[in-house]
């Protein structure tokens, strides 16, 4: 599917690149002729187009942020084409995009292949991955070991004793559980399986990755929307879906037991709370999964945007820095509306400091 979608984008990107080089020259030319007074340029450096690809997890955020940013900085055009975290990392490494976003950092071997030299991880989004279900259970509660056993087909009935133990007093149907997962490789799968690996105390055996070895007696859907759609249309189904798609499909989702033993529902506030309990490395890499804190929703995923430390094009570099700064400051206010959560303030400051280090010629 992805290949069919990317072709038009490729053409658009190429066209846009041509446009950029055409437009990018204008301000310098006008400067050279000496017209310094009375400029009305709103973007520092002049009109410019930034092309990006990467995580679909934060595509909704990129769309609203781009729209809002273009309003305050009318000369900048931003095309975020999605395509998945893996594509984003690859495109960024090959320098075919101006920036890229990803749900997972580079593996060490791949980081060495990044062609443009040093780069920064700028965290910009936190989002909950819900465990959505289609069963006659009011306010389902699940702990990580139970969740792990459900998703690797050790628990096959909704009234299994392990589920009953997580839901004291609840009436559970004696129906079969249908597990739904992603058919396409996905950062959401990677974060969900990472969480199970981390939090299930050894119950999870399939390890973590963009695809794992799901049992053959499970169902698969394409994208978050595909999983949500199968869960919605299949009695007894359970699947992992990001919060915005779960809400859009009107699916109920489980409260998940966090490190402090509290069952927490995925909400913007609980997602933000997960951000408060994280430990961040100097390069701003962290994991919001299985975070500490009473109010933290434990299956909280994070996403970064990648930017080269040494920009080669003045106009583009300036616009990139302005957009990145917007993403981690004012842009953060847009997140709750689309069912994502802002990164904590302390992390915002660190991100801004990192962006300030980016050199523009």
């Amino acid at each position, binding site marked *: *599917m*992805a*290949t*069919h979608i990317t072709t038009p984008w490729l053409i658009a990107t190429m066209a846009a690149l041509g446009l950029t080089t055409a437009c990018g020259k204008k301000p310098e030319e006008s400067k050279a002729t000496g017209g310094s007074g009375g400029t009305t340029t709103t973007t520092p450096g002049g009109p410019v187009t930034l092309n990006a690809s990467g995580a679909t997890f934060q595509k909704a955020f990129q769309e609203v942020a781009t729209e809002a940013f273009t309003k305050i900085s009318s000369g900048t055009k931003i095309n975020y084409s999605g*395509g*998945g*975290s*893996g*594509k984003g990392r690859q495109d960024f490494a090959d320098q075919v995009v101006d920036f890229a976003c990803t749900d997972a950092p580079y*593996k060490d*071997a*791949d980081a060495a292949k990044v062609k443009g030299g040093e780069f920064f991880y700028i965290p910009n989004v936190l989002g909950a991955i819900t465990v959505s279900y289609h069963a006659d259970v009011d306010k389902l509660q699940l702990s990580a070991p139970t969740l792990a056993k459900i998703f690797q087909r050790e628990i096959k009935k909704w009234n299994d004793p392990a589920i009953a133990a997580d839901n004291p007093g609840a009436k559970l149907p004696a129906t079969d559980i249908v597990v739904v997962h992603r*058919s*396409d*490789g*996905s*950062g959401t799968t*990677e974060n969900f*399986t990472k969480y199970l690996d981390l939090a299930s105390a050894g119950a999870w055996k*399939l*390890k*973590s*990755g*963009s*695809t*794992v*070895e*799901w*049992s*053959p*007696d*499970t*169902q*698969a859907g*394409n994208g978050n929307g595909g999983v949500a759609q199968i869960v919605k*249309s299949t009695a007894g189904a359970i699947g992992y879906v990001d919060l915005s798609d779960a809400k859009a499909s009107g699916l109920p989702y489980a409260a998940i037991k966090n490190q402090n033993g509290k069952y927490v529902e995925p909400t913007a506030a609980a997602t933000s709370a997960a951000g408060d309990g994280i430990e961040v490395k100097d390069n701003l890499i962290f994991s919001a999964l299985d975070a500490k804190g009473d109010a933290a929703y434990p299956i909280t995923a994070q996403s970064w945007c990648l930017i080269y430390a040494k920009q080669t094009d003045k106009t583009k570099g300036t616009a990139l820095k302005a957009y990145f700064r917007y993403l981690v400051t004012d842009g953060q206010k847009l997140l709750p509306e689309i069912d994502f959560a802002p990164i904590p303030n302390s992390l915002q400051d660190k991100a801004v400091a990192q962006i300030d280090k980016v050199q523009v010629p």
Partner: protein
Amino acid sequence: MIDLRGKVQHADTAFRWIALAAAATVLVVLGLIAFTMTDRSLPVLERMGLRFFTSSRWSAPEGEFGAAAFIFGTLYTATIAVVIAVPVSLGVALFITQAAPPWLKKPMVYMIDLLAVVPSVVFGLWGAFVLSQHFGLGRSFLTAGIILAIMIIPIITSLAREVIETTPNTDKEAALALGATRWEMIRAAVLPHSKGGIVGAVMLGLGRAMGETIAAALVIGSALGQISANPFKPGNSMPAVIANEWGEADELHKSALIALAVTLFVITIVVNLAATAIVQRSMRRSRGG
């Protein structure tokens, strides 16, 4: 080139070279594809060895890549497709050529050809919404097989129709003159004459069914490690796996997906060679050799 009057014919020379270049390009491209693909699939083949073809465990996080289940799924769905498509296609082709009233012939041919230009993603979505949900077939080998059958019917039909139309009228009239009914005439004159071409058409359809990506990815169910003769079970095929997993694959995983592509490439070539051999043998036989 020198013509009869001893003049050099530049046009002829140019044509010869251009034609040669065109022919060479195809071979060079094919060779380059085979080379790069094989080269890039080496890491996984070195790691897995023959188990790549015999194991059906496919676990990217553990670096275990066994394609057996996907090879099975590819062949199984393609077989289902051919089993469904061949009788339908032959029926349509025979109807158009032998039984249809003249006014119906053209619209029929036109409709069948129209079926061939529908993009595969449309078939896939139709299958996902109508066959798997509305008719409750789910995502399974059978759903994929039916969709693939619909996709290859136009190819088989139009090739079979063209071959059947080349049956000499004298053969047909001879059969009828001997008192054959229309069906006996088809059996005695039309089918023996067209056998080779029909087999070739079926093999082309089979090749297309094996390589179909998007429609299969949408309806086959993406189940890992499924080797089951039960057509109602979800499975997976090589092109569907490549389409689904390429975007987020890391180095070794990509190498495994490329190795799948090479495997598909080889299987398709084998099928085509087999088709050529069958066609030639049956042609020799029909000539009485």
